[in-house]
């Protein structure tokens, strides 16, 4: 029997191609794309970790035709009972090693608590599997490095980290836009995540409850900056095209004083070599104004909210031309120009580019779509591979350290060496 990892088009597109192929494929007509994919063989996937996010992944995989969830792994029987209801055809296991031994399974998706990513990911890579691991990649630098090294050594296998913005068409389009100078000179960045939730989980089984609340244990988890902030820090590092050289953090328990040691309110300042600073705050004590990211510059400010982007132009900024026709949304006294990805493509399909794209999918879909495209046409370096995953993991781990000590930490190039 053939090695399930060897996929049909592997050889006509070699690893030398550094351009993510899915961005080229974006130009294909939908029908051609579908035909190309249906010609591909089914990919048998094991989903390891079937909590809230694991279920999202499972539901999203339904939209990816060639993905077949052949096994679900979780150490908690309640989750396996849920899996039985949702995916009756999938095998259920409590030990992930069973799926690593299964030659029919070429691919694993890891959605377990962050501190157990390392063991599973490294074992899976060593067993020859393709790996998609949720972000943050790890909660300790030692773990992150071990995973990055294993991924580096398995260059014929795909290793993708769930840094979702990297695969999202709106983020990609704004990335191009910023690179072409839309901000003028970038001067600063700010992001926030505000919610009202105790961030705690419960179970009738006390021991299980302890395990479920790993996010509240500063020894196991990097808390808010890692589990939430990573998805806002990563696009900032990507857009600014640099890695922080310092991080200053503050963290305290302001509301959920229920026995946890993890701060429920954090404020962090990331300094970048260019002089730009990103200020970030996250709290589950107040939902006011939700979550967004802002990139400020001389000519304009760009805001991300709910994976959509708007540009707020300075009155003295040069005219771009197209902004006259673009959709505008009002935010109190400011007028945001909607930045719609693929506006010309929408126009070609007779879809009004000033409306939201009716074909828009969730951020998780785009990330998984890219992962499975890579199975068919790769392996090429994913938009969020081990290097990107490692970089953001290092920064969130250092930030967590700064938050726990209310201190400033300097970062240098050697911190990012794998």
């Amino acid at each position, binding site marked *: 029997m053939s090695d399930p990892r060897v996929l049909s088009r592997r050889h006509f597109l070699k690893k030398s191609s550094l351009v993510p192929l899915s961005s080229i494929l974006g130009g294909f007509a939908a029908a051609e794309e579908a035909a190309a994919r249906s010609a591909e063989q089914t990919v048998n996937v094991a989903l390891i970790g079937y909590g*809230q996010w694991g279920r999202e992944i499972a*539901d999203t995989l339904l939209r990816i035709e060639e993905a077949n969830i052949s096994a679900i792994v979780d150490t908690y029987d309640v989750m396996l009972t849920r899996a039985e*209801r949702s995916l009756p055809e999938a095998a259920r296991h409590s030990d992930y090693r069973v799926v690593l031994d299964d030659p029919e399974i070429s691919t694993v998706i890891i959605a377990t608590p962050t501190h157990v990513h390392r063991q599973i990911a490294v074992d899976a890579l060593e067993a020859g599997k393709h790996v998609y691991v949720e972000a943050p990649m790890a909660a300790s630098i030692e773990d992150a490095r071990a995973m990055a090294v294993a991924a580096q050594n398995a260059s014929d296998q795909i290793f993708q980290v769930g840094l979702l913005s990297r695969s999202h068409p709106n983020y990609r389009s704004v990335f191009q836009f910023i690179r072409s100078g839309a901000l003028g000179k970038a001067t600063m960045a700010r992001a926030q995540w505000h919610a009202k939730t*105790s961030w705690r989980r*419960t*179970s*009738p089984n006390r021991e299980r409850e302890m395990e479920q609340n790993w996010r509240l244990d500063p020894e196991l988890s990097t808390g808010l900056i890692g589990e939430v902030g990573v998805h806002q820090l990563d696009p900032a590092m990507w857009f600014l095209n640099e890695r922080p050289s310092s991080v200053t953090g503050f963290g305290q328990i302001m509301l959920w004083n229920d026995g946890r040691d993890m701060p429920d309110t954090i404020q962090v300042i990331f300094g970048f070599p260019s002089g730009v600073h990103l200020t970030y705050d996250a709290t589950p004590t107040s939902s006011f104004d939700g979550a967004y990211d802002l990139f400020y510059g001389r000519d304009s400010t760009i805001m991300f909210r709910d994976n959509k982007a708007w540009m707020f132009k300075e009155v003295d900024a040069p005219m771009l031309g197209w902004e006259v026709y673009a959709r505008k949304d009002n935010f109190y006294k400011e007028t945001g120009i909607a930045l719609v990805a693929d506006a010309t493509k929408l126009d070609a399909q007779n879809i009004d580019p000033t409306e939201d794209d009716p074909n828009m999918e*969730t951020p998780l*879909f785009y990330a998984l779509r890219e992962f499975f495209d890579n199975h068919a046409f790769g392996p090429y370096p994913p938009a969020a591979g081990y290097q990107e995953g490692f970089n953001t993991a290092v920064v969130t781990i250092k930030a967590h350290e700064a938050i726990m000590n209310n201190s400033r930490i300097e970062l240098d190039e050697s911190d990012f060496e794998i």
Partner: protein
Amino acid sequence: MVTVRLARMAMACRFELILYGEDAVRLRAAGEAALDEIERIEARLTIYDAASDVSRINARAASEDVRVSSELFDLLRTAKRLHRQTNGTFDLTISPLMRAWGFFRNTGHMPDPEQLEDARALTGMDLVNLQESDRSVRFLREGVMLDFGAIGKGYAIDEAVALLREAGVDRALLHGGTSTVYALGSPPEEEAWKVAIPRPDARDEPLALVDLRDESLSVSAVWGKSFEAGGRTYGHVLDPRSGEPVHGAVLSAVTAANATESDAISTALLVAAGTDVSDEHIHEDSEPIGIWPFGLEEGMRALIVVPDQNKAFFRVVEFGLTALESARQILVQPPSTSSQ
């Protein structure tokens, strides 16, 4: 015994949850997971987000088989059963009708006859084909649209309650926008949760008090969006069979073992009560014999408020739910004093 109260905005209304138990921290965590589940379901079912499962079905199911999750497939199967059970008065495909009548994101207007005819041709659960083998959905006509508005809230409440039970919660009350409520167990020292149904003519006063224990209650009413034309008021509750707004019945209430059923059947009952209520149902002692009408099943309790034959006053028709004596008297006043 401690009490924890939580609230969350979802599905364009306020969900509220009251929990009783021994440990406030754990009750809150369980309650938050339940409310998270409601948000998750909203994200799947909403037609206001192009990335939702339902938007995706609506965009594609006319031209291809759309694979859906087993949860959504089960819900669609339930919806088909409820459609049959309610004689077509509960229907997830009324979006084109709502648009024709201008009730989509608007307060409504008289429809263009041609547009109404087209919309009627796109209405009916028989136009939604469910394929068991690969759990896929297919529309039999271009333009069919699913809208889970009449069942989504109830379904979300049921799923949330399942999570509460899983977390060991045994005393809780969860409602969505006060129109659908599920009572888990009972409050301490009480036999049941006591829930009031508001009077259609004076919403601060109770029409009936209902005891609930491990049971749901849904109330549907014609208040809300409406417009006037030719001296007649047209409300936003449409009869899927005729394509016309429900005329006459002003309120229905149903209890059921789960909120999915009560949510769907209360809507269906309001539709049926406006058109299908015959004299025999209106008699004071209208206790049904044998088969319950309008999709009601054994174990369910219901009431409807309908105009009397000569339209001079409203009357409560009871199927196991009893109106308060005080409300009953006022409701039989002429509409000049009991109008909306």
